[in-house]
């Protein structure tokens, strides 16, 4: 609306072509706009001529368009359907189509376009153009077209295309009903139905319930007839469609099979002949729309309608198995159609079998191994191109038939079985195996053995042999996604075959990354998660290995699938080295088989291929995949929609039972005593669900309404303490309101919020929580991940080797710059690289999540973390990695998470972080250095305060430091932080922390929360509340402040 009002807005690209827009120029038939560019080559000519035309067409102003419409109208009015009208309509179409904004044509012109479209004498080309212009204008309010106006079925088809383009559901219905009415007329010399059948198909896809039931049935019956009883005589020349006729009509002969033999009684889409009759065309169309019709139209009301129909049939029950016999004409329409469809598909399978035997020659074999698309390879043109598609379609239709009527299974199964046996050895028909697998999976009970066999074949062999086919790869991944629920026992096979599946991903990463992101949560499995992580990190090397494999296996004369500009003779030779051979085979394994730590020799070997565009593309996809992997791993324990705290101050979603369960489990894992600091007390005996009792010091009292559902972080965000005059010291204040132990609220006893961690009758347990937790335990505690984390902080040979290999330079965002320019071989490796590529994009958000899964991680990996913290210094170390690592230290370096945490450890971390804070804040501001975000400073201060609250000897030191920080933040001229807001944030945080530290007991209580804050009840229940405690403290303080003198 807003655009159409301003003609000037069409001139979006007017700056490229300053010349005045000129219709005549735009419309000069032979590319007049690009006339001067003939010598520059076809491509650029085409492009520039086209672009020129588009731009010029856009520049046609309203006035000019009005004049042009008048000219078109005059031509159409006079029924002058010569070259002028053709030319004018072509231009009109271009003008309307070239811009995305609506063009307002003269109403008379629009009316005349519709009249011409429905005129019985107008040539087809003009009608097509009229329809195209009207469709391009759609949706349009000024249409007066109706199906009743069309004089012929061909024109009805055109009118329908215009009407269906309007996007109006009511219109779709009207069109459908009108068209099906015409289809019902059965006069032999009636309108050609081939123009109308596709309209019906389209209507049912747009609005499945658009067609009346009676007519749907009637059409089903006729579709069955067309499928089975199309004539087997070739069409006579004069009957070939009306536009083309030869003066000498040849004697029609019988149609033939693809192998040249005469077809006796059954016409299918594989039958060939010189000319085709109307019913043969309908046969083709009927088969083409059959599957969609069965799925959408026919069986939309399968049960009742069929039963009624059947009872009408003289009350006799028609056995489906005998339906093929003479009684079959008595079947109700839907069953009739299914019956005929089955016969048709069986016939197709038989035909394709015959052909496949004949064509099993070496040419095809070669074409298949060379090209990704077996049927379009160099040898393909001699083949009838239709057969593999038919094969696939026949199996798909059989699948639909058997799903709708299981009694068909006994007739379909043998055919499909035979087909599978035939195709499994046939590399040319790999893609046909997917529908076959789908068929077996859908009919699991009857075909379980077949399903296993075909899945085995699919997962173990196909990816290794056909990873380079982009279409197969796409179909394969889609197949896996679509049939996850059906895999059953084969799901394990799928999971262990992930190294094979990843070959598709490694080879065609741009097209498949999103598919794999969706697939990863299913593929992640307890046994293989760690190996999968390794392989994901090795994915670019896998790409290179696959490249090398192709180079080694394919003759140079064939059309190569790899980048020939990258030469790797050394690689091919080195491959013969037995040691490299072993590693190479490991990388190209088909099934999960454990990890290998030392892949460095292989990385070195593959180094020349690291600059291949394909490898770089894959490397760019790895961070996304890693993120998905970690999300899949952590998702299992974190409740849905849980957010992971990435930085101090961010809300942390705790309090979900599932998550609490994880903690309890982790604690049980690491500390056998199972008792917790701060009040969570495990009363359950071994093997029973752990149960919490309230801490003895919970206050009793009203719960401030405004704090309902607030989170712990909100509470500890010091909002309540902000501005309070905490002039009193000592923890005695706290003791006062908490004098007596409240009774345990009955809610806790009656409704255990914890899902049982052991098999029990609890619904959550039945949903498989324990074994879903197990992989997390494995991932979080098993050596490789610890290795990953540990070595991440030790400059990690494990990760670094892979990263350095895959990321010679911090990767540019996809598409920003050609990967080939990105290779700078002597780029320094190390932290910059690491934090640039891995840390910021993947690990930073995952580190706290991993700590949450396995809280003792921080204590266990203290040495590496300290080293890492030591290496973080310098003004450049801003960013999420630092924030989240420091946050995690403050949160998890506590005796409440791991009893091994010692005061000495705390003070070592304190010193390291103190130094880090000093380093960060003392750097001078400079234009070359990025600003230090205030979050880094505040999170450092908070973490230091947290540590001090746990080891109270440190309190004087941290108080001094905080005072310094406060002072520093008051003088904006110095320090690395710019901006009054940022300084204010630092100042406020320092003040808050200082106030808090004045009461060490409160500080400990607030900064090291006990575990039950994880429960929502802790924030909602009026009997248990940290916020309540704080509120009470603040009131007491205020009152006391008022009472105390001065």
């Amino acid at each position, binding site marked *: 609306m807003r*655009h159409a009002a301003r003609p000037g807005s069409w001139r979006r690209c007017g700056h490229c072509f300053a010349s005045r827009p000129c219709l005549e120029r735009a419309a000069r038939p032979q590319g007049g706009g690009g006339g001067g560019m*003939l010598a*520059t*080559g*076809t*491509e*650029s*000519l*085409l*492009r520039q001529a*086209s672009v020129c035309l*588009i731009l010029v067409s856009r520049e046609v102003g309203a006035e000019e368009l009005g004049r042009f419409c008048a000219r078109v109208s005059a031509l159409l009015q006079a029924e002058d359907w010569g070259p002028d009208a053709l030319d004018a*309509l*072509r231009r009109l179409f*271009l003008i309307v189509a*070239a811009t995305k*904004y*609506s063009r307002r044509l003269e109403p008379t012109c629009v009316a005349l376009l519709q009249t011409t479209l429905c005129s019985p004498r107008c040539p087809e*080309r*003009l009608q*097509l153009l009229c329809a*195209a212009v009207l469709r391009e204008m*759609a*949706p349009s309010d000024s249409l007066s077209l109706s199906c009743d106006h069309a004089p012929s079925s061909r024109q009805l088809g055109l009118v*329908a295309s215009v009407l269906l*383009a309007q*996007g109006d559901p009511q219109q*779709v219905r009207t069109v459908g009903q009108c068209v099906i009415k015409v289809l019902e007329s059965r006069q032999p010399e009636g309108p050609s139905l081939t123009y109308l*059948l*596709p309209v019906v198909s*389209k209507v049912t896809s*747009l609005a499945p319930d658009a067609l009346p039931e009676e007519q749907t049935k009637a059409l089903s019956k006729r579709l069955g007839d067309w499928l089975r009883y199309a004539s087997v005589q070739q069409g006579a020349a004069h009957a*070939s469609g009306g536009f*083309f006729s030869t003066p000498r009509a040849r004697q029609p002969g019988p149609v033939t099979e693809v192998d040249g033999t005469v077809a006796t009684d059954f016409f299918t*889409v594989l039958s*060939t002949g*010189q000319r*085709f009759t109307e019913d043969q065309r309908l046969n*083709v*169309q009927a088969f*083409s729309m059959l599957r969609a019709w069965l799925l959408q139209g026919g069986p939309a009301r399968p049960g009742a309608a069929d039963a009624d129909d059947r009872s009408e049939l003289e009350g006799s029950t028609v056995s489906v198995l005998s339906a093929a016999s003479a009684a079959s004409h008595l079947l109700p329409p839907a069953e009739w159609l299914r019956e005929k469809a089955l016969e048709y598909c069986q016939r197709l399978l038989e035909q394709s079998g015959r052909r496949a035997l004949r064509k099993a020659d070496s040419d095809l074999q070669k074409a298949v191994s060379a090209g990704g698309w077996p049927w*379009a390879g160099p040898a393909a043109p001699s083949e009838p*191109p*239709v057969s*593999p598609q*038919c094969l696939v379609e026949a199996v798909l239709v059989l699948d639909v038939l058997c799903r709708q009527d299981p009694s068909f299974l006994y007739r379909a199964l043998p055919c499909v079985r035979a087909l599978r046996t035939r195709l499994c050895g046939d590399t040319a028909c790999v*893609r*046909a195996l997917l529908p076959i697998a789908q068929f077996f999976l859908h009919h699991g009970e009857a075909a379980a053995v077949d399903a296993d066999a075909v899945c085995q074949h699919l997962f173990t062999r196909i990816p290794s042999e056909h990873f380079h086919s982009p*279409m197969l790869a*796409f*179909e394969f991944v*889609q197949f896996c996604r679509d049939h996850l629920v059906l895999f059953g026992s084969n799901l394990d096979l799928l999971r262990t075959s992930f190294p094979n599946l990843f070959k598709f991903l490694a080879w*065609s990463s*741009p097209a498949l990354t999103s598919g794999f992101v969706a697939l990863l949560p299913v593929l992640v499995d307890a046994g293989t998660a760690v190996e999968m992580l390794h392989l994901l990190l090795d994915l670019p090397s896998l790409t290179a290995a696959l490249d090398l494999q192709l180079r080694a296996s394919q003759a140079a004369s064939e059309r*190569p699938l790899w980048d020939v500009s990258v030469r790797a003779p050394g690689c091919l030779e080195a491959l013969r080295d037995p040691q490299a051979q072993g590693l190479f085979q490991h990388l190209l394994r088909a099934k999960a088989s454990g990890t290998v730590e030392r892949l460095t020799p292989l990385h070195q070997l593959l180094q020349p291929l690291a600059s*291949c*565009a394909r490898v770089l*593309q894959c490397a760019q996809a790895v961070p996304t995949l890693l993120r998905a992997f970690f999300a899949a791993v952590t998702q299992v324990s974190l409740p849905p929609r849980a957010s992971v705290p990435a930085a101090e101050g961010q809300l942390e979603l705790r309090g979900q039972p599932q998550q609490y369960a994880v903690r309890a489990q982790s604690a049980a894992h690491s500390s056998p005593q199972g008792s917790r600091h701060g009040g969570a007390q495990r009363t359950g005996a071994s093997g029973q669900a752990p149960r919490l009792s309230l801490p003895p010091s919970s206050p009793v009292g009203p719960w401030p309404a405004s704090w309902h559902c607030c989170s712990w972080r909100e509470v500890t965000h010091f909002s309540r303490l902000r501005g309070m005059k905490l002039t009193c010291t000592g923890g005695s204040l706290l003791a006062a309101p908490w004098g007596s132990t409240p009774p345990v609220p009955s809610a806790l006893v009656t409704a255990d919020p914890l899902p049982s961690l052991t098999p029990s009758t609890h619904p959550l347990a039945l949903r498989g929580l324990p074994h879903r937790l197990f992989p997390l335990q494995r991932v979080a505690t098993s050596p490789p991940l610890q290795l990953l984390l540990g070595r991440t902080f030790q400059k990690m040979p494990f990760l670094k080797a892979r990263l350095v290999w895959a990321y010679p330079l911090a990767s540019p965002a996809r*598409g920003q710059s*050609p990967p080939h320019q990105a290779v700078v071989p002597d780029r320094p490796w190390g932290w910059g690289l690491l934090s640039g590529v891995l840390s910021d994009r993947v690990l930073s958000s995952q580190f706290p999540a991993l700590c949450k899964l396995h809280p003792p991680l921080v204590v266990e990996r203290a040495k590496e973390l300290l080293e890492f913290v030591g290496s973080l210094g310098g003004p450049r170390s801003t960013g999420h990695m630092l924030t989240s690592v420091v946050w995690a230290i403050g949160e998890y370096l506590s005796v409440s998470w791991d009893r091994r945490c010692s005061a000495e450890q705390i003070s070592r971390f304190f010193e390291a972080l103190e130094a880090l804070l000093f380093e960060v804040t003392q750097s001078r501001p400079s234009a070359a250095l990025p600003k230090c975000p205030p979050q880094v400073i505040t999170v450092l201060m908070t973490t230091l305060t947290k540590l001090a609250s746990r080891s109270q000897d440190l309190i004087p030191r941290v108080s001094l430091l905080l005072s310094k920080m406060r002072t520093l933040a008051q003088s904006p001229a110095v320090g690395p932080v710019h901006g009054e807001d940022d300084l204010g944030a630092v100042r406020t945080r320092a003040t808050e922390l200082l106030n808090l530290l004045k009461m060490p007991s409160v500080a400990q209580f607030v900064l090291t929360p006990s575990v039950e804050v994880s429960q929502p009840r802790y924030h909602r229940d009026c009997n248990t509340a940290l916020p309540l405690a704080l509120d009470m403290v603040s009131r007491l303080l205020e009152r006391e402040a008022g009472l105390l003198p001065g």
Partner: protein
Amino acid sequence: MVHAFLIHTLRAAKAEEGLCRVLYSCFFGAENSPNDSQPHSAERDRLLRKEQILAVARQVESMYQLQQQACGRHAVDLQPQSSDDPVALHEAPCGAFRLAPGDPFQEPRTVVWLGVLSIGFALVLDTHENLLLVESTLRLLARLLLDHLRLLVPGGANLLLRADCIEGILTRFLPHGQLLFLNDQFVQGLEKEFSAAWSH
């Protein structure tokens, strides 16, 4: 069922990097407009459709470029073909990708594309189509269009001004977006019929 067909440029010239031009597009029936309560103007719906097509074209272009780069073929390497060379259609790169629901179509869709020199052909499909059939249909359409429009021949007609020809081919070989199982003889028959109708 095919939802839309489009022809667009690939490998835009340096001067207009990132500008992918849709040369022809056609929706077979329209997706119903989203069911929010606000009434839509027809203009907005049309704009939406055009943007959807452009989004598909852009994505095809980048998929094509990534695939070409991966095979070591770069835009600069490709010399303009002489007009006598038959276009090696069976070697033309093709691919498929999935469009998530809502981006840009309401329903999830599959896109199958074919890149022939500087022109991309793409079909937007319902998910679960027979992709083998789709691929061969797309190659067939591309061949017919290249042959009959003589697109790559200097001095040949510009496809922008030959919409009737494109429409004529689509009406026969992809009527209302219905993919057809056509064997060679059948294709020849239809092609003859088309040529006859267009010759006078």
